């Protein structure tokens, strides 16, 4: 008897709850349908090891969206407002894929964006391609994302091949101009898609430039202790150390190497964790003189940067990073395409995106002149800057040093690292 009544109560309770939920959801969609909005589904890591960069991404998108909406929204769509829907990918590819399905089928988003981690972006973009929904990739750099002949995928950031190419170009430049001989090289990278992809680019380049690879070490980003990795670097004693790290491991590895007194002539990072403002805050002097490849820096002499950065810093207490700028610019690229498409038909948005040539406006605080996509959907102008970490006063700053044209005035590259 007891069991039946419990079942009944339970059943009615659940039924009532379901009813309430259905009502609420349908009410919500009814309101949404009446409002003139364009929905952007953002799949980014908001918890887990990449959460801090994911959140920065979100903040940057919010700021850009607010700027566009305050300026009147999408005029060709009757002043339609952009609305961001954020879904936490947890840096997990399967979550990314299921979120994309949900955003497309349930939330009926018009455009997708994400996913920061290349490992998540790679399968998730496949879902967007299947449904024919335009997908903007602000930061995931793995080459193959735009090399599958997809029509609906557009990437703002440079491919990892370009990052690797410029890392080696920089080292070569330094060898020649500073008369430093660099013979041996070590690769240390997180063992996800991104790190492994970078290492694949590095190997042929190392051969081409005549380096001897003395260490090739993928490591798990979620390690609780990176002393073993630091010890291996010390033992291999390379001239150059190339790193690809996510945020938490970048901090841990850097501080552990300092503790273990690892000395190399040049440490070069690959953005990501090394570009995270948390890295600067948490490493301080331990990271001084290290180099990092970025797409963007606060000290670049481009109009609009100081204002946007000041506003961002006012809200969140830290500077924009290269990746947040890509996310920021991506919203303006979307707005520009929508303006030209003058329609919410995914095919028309896609065609407008393919014809993008965005060179001015408040969103163009990127380091290069224009956003333009080639036939694979890759932004062909994405450029790269080398920065060096320097202590200025009490804080660690990123100073643009290479190419010479982008270098901050009054600073000289310190090479090799002391």
């Amino acid at each position, binding site marked *: 008897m007891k069991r039946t009544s419990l079942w009944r109560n339970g059943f009615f309770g659940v039924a009532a709850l379901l009813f309430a939920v259905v009502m609420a959801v349908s009410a919500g969609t009814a309101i949404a349908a009446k409002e003139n909005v364009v929905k952007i589904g953002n799949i980014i890591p908001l918890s887990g090891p990449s959460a801090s960069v994911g*959140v920065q991404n979100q903040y940057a998108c919010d700021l850009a969206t607010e700027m566009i909406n305050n300026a009147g929204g999408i005029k060709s769509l009757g002043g339609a407002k952009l609305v961001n829907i954020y879904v936490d990918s947890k840096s997990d590819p399967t979550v990314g894929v299921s979120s994309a399905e949900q955003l497309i089928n349930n939330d009926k988003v018009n455009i997708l964006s994400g996913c920061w981690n290349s490992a998540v972006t790679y399968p998730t973009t496949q879902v967007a391609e299947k449904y024919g929904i335009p997908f903007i990739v602000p930061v995931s750099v793995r080459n193959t994302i735009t090399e599958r002949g997809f029509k609906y995928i557009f990437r703002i950031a440079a491919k990892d091949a370009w990052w690797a190419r410029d890392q080696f170009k920089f080292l070569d430049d330094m060898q020649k101009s500073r008369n430093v001989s660099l013979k041996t090289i070590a690769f240390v990278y997180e063992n996800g898609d991104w790190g492994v992809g970078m290492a694949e680019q590095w190997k042929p380049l190392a051969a081409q430039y005549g380096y001897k690879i003395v260490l090739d070490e993928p490591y798990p980003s979620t390690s609780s202790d990176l002393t073993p990795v630091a010890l291996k670097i010390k033992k291999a004693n390379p001239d150059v150390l190339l790193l690809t790290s996510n945020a938490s491991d970048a901090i841990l590895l850097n501080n552990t190497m300092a503790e273990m007194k690892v000395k190399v002539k040049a440490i070069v990072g690959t953005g990501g964790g090394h570009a995270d403002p948390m890295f600067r805050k948490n490493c301080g002097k331990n990271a001084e003189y290290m180099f990092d490849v970025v797409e963007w820096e606060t000290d670049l002499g481009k109009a609009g940067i100081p204002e946007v950065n000041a506003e961002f810093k006012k809200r969140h207490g830290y500077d924009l990073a290269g990746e947040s700028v890509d996310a920021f610019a991506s919203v303006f690229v979307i707005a520009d395409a929508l303006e030209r498409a003058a329609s919410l038909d995914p095919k028309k948005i896609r065609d407008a995106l393919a014809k993008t040539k965005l060179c001015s406006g408040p969103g163009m605080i990127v380091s290069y002149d224009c956003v333009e996509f080639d036939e694979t959907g890759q932004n062909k102008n994405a450029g790269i800057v080398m920065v060096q970490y320097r202590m200025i006063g009490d804080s660690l700053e990123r100073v643009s040093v290479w190419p010479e044209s982008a270098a901050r005035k009054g600073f000289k590259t310190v090479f090799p690292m002391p």
Partner: protein
Amino acid sequence: MDTILQGIVNGTLIGSIYGLAALGLTLIFGVIKVINFAHGSCLMVGMYAAYWAVKLLGIHPYLAMVIVVPALFFFGYLMQDIVIKPVLKAQSDVREPTEVIIVTTGVWYILDNVTLMIFGAEYRVIQTSISGKIFELGDLIISKPKFYGFIATIVVSLALVWFLKYTKMGKSIRAASLDREAASLMGINQYRVYNIAFGIGTAIMGVVGCALIPFYYVFPTVGVIFDVKCFIIVVLGGLGSIPGALIGGVIVGLIESMGAQFMTSTWTELIVYVVFLAVLFVKPAGLFGSKLDW
């Protein structure tokens, strides 16, 4: 040769800290027969407590234990009393209450996400007076915070063993863990014993938190990194066994540290699991687990 010795030293030191973290888990299991899935989150709470104590009061991280450890004790005590006890009572005729596992999993998610809401996803590292400090013996480099963590492990384990052996409460805890009904008949309030055992298990996480923050960063899901390790260590050493947790911790630390000298560190995780399975195969109760029970 140097790196081998260095690896052994580092593996032992970091392994002992893993062991200390696993100690709380093994104690709670040994007494209440509950696998506390919120264990990593308790560690996270301990680390945040230590972080804010050092940051706001400007005190030495080890001095912060004076505040953090009692705070974590009450945190664990109340968690057991308010959240877990009702479920335990509802299942009082079951020997190993499985529903509690679901409850602790819920606590884990709630704690992690509430922390994410309050403190945000960012990584926090605090520069303390011993962060990055080292002892140098010839070429051998020993990290001071890890060394003190090792000392803390020894002190806490000895204190715990003494407490369980010689105090009245300790004896009650052991009695309740052996047979909760017989213990109740002898006049032991089993739920009070559980509260205290849970409190102690959590208080140990306060010690670990204070030992970790000079060299490790804090973020809302930091517990997950240590959680999996703790479970492996506890099962490897034998569920409910105190020396088992410590030795298990050192074994895992050594495998991670030494394995990486011979292969990429991606593979050392595999070795940990292979050793884990091999031990279970040969000795299903774990290294120090008795066949019967604790």
